[in-house]
């Protein structure tokens, strides 16, 4: 309701704003260097700037608090369509603190879709039919900690104090979701980097994501969680005894995404379930999302293959982001086209929702 009101009430001055050339937004885009790693404060400022620069398509939502009481925020990007029910795409980056290329990618992704939707009719359609929920840094405490000094750069987990009797900090948030929790690929040793926590969803971060996505789960067409390193596209499930109901579809779309990635800079990404191509695991956000019924759920493991590992040089950020964007877009476009039947034309076109339920306005 709030969004609608703003739209109508400033309609008169919208024209004026449009006449001011995109310099404000453009200037801001030129100032922010997407090809450098940014500390949390700069990412938070950037998020506010995106809302400021694109008020008609970007809103920020605070959806949780970390262990150390920092805010977990996302940018919701989409063309406002009052009265029309939209579907959604979820993207989170930085579940693991040391994987700095992931938050860099989330920021790049947002800037790309904002740049392209005005001129690219497909992206415009997608922004009209779907909202993109992008969390640039999910594990805020861990990310902040990894920026502290040389000795903390390779931190992975969140910053929960250990349980009684254990002096180590941190739970692996990507083992803490309620998806075959604690069964395989985890450790009950609180000092381990794959410590799954004292219980499923024991961590506030996990709880807040679970609540936010869970309460909107029918809206989400795809769930992408971004990590590094390894150049992989992982499909559910992490447990070797469970196969996703739409495994064939996940593989076909995933292989298509990997092809799209390779076309950009020649980098090969392997595609498969985690137990097949990497290692078995449980409690991952990807598995949880799929169990919620979100059909296209993937883990992206970005560059590289181990030469630099978590410390990917800044001069590779651009190329990594470009290829990952191509891969993500492949999955998102597939999800969109599967749900919306779009009349193909070079001018404005409309997409009608395929499913009966949505045509009934439910």
């Amino acid at each position, binding site marked *: 309701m709030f969004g609608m009101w703003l739209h109508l009430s400033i309609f008169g001055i919208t024209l004026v704003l449009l006449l001011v050339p995109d310099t404000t937004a453009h200037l801001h885009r030129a100032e922010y260097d997407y090809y450098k790693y940014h500390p949390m404060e700069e990412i938070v400022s950037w998020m506010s700037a995106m809302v400021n620069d694109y008020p008609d398509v970007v809103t920020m939502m605070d959806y949780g608090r970390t262990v150390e009481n920092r805010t977990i925020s996302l940018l919701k990007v989409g063309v406002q369509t009052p009265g029309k029910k939209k579907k959604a795409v979820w993207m989170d980056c930085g579940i693991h603190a040391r994987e700095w290329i992931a938050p860099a990618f989330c920021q790049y992704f947002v800037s790309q879709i904002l740049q392209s939707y005005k001129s690219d009719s497909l992206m415009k359609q997608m922004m009209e039919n779907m909202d993109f929920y992008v969390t640039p840094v999910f594990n805020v405490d861990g990310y902040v900690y990894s920026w502290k000094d040389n000795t*903390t750069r*390779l931190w992975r987990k969140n910053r929960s104090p250990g349980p009684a009797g254990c002096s180590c900090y941190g739970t692996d948030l990507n083992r803490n979701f309620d998806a075959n929790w604690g069964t395989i690929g985890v450790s009950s040793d609180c*000092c*381990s980097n794959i410590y799954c926590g004292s219980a499923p969803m024991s961590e506030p971060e996990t709880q807040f994501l679970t609540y936010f996505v869970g309460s909107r789960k029918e809206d989400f067409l795809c769930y992408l969680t971004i990590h590094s390193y390894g150049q992989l596209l992982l499909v559910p499930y992490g447990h070797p005894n469970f196969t996703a109901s739409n495994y064939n579809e996940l593989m076909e779309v995933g292989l298509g995404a990997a092809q799209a990635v390779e076309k950009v800079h020649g980098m090969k990404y392997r*595609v498969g379930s985690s137990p*097949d*191509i990497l290692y078995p695991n449980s409690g991952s956000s990807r598995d949880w999302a799929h169990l919620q019924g979100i059909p296209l759920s993937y883990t992206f493991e970005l560059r590289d293959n181990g030469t630099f590992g978590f*410390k990917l*040089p800044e001069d590779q950020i651009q190329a990594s982001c470009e290829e990952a964007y191509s891969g993500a877009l492949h999955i998102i476009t597939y999800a969109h086209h599967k749900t919306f039947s779009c009349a193909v034309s070079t001018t404005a076109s409309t997409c009608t929702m395929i499913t009966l339920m949505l045509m009934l306005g439910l």
Partner: protein
Amino acid sequence: MATGDLNPNHYPAQRAAKVVQHYLNTRHGSPFRLFGLHSVENGSAENVNDTGRKYQLGLTVHEIISNTTLNCTAEVIFPDGAEQQPPVVQVSCEDLSKSNATAEEEAFYQQYKSNQSLVSAQNLPDSYGHIDPDKKPFWHLGIVASSFVMLNESNENTLYNMAQVANITQLATENEQLKFDSHILLHDMVSQEILHWKLLFTWSPAEGVEVQDMEQLRRCNH
């Protein structure tokens, strides 16, 4: 564990191939020559009675500095037993000599042999993935030296990469070999742990890297 023909994209062949990378670096790595696993083309595995698990692999490796790719075939045997023992590797690559860096190695060796001022470097790469160009050969040496550890410590349940050279300090040249003391961080993908090792090693163009002492540092987590 998987036996017979292996899917080259699946982890058993990939882990065995990573071992081949470590082996190549111990034998042929230098400040100007470094190998990375590029792809696994095919593989098979079998149980060998009273010995262990034997992998046969067709793979390509990437010589990182000259940016060349080589086809290789390799055999990796992971020994049976409860205690960790180093895998046994045999590998043959076409055109291994193509990526020779003799001139650069000799120049580097002469530059640092004289002990005029012993070099020392920390945090390679830094948090941003950056390494000063004149420090890069020391990062390469760190990878080569740590490949000895990674090779020794590898089994079917590990996948090692070097995460960082925390510190590398040149010591006085000994028997015509450059000598270094180093503190290196390894990453094991499977456990996701960071392992700290101290390595004392020597290098010359003629002898390559030889490790004199290696010791794992037990760290308390913070």
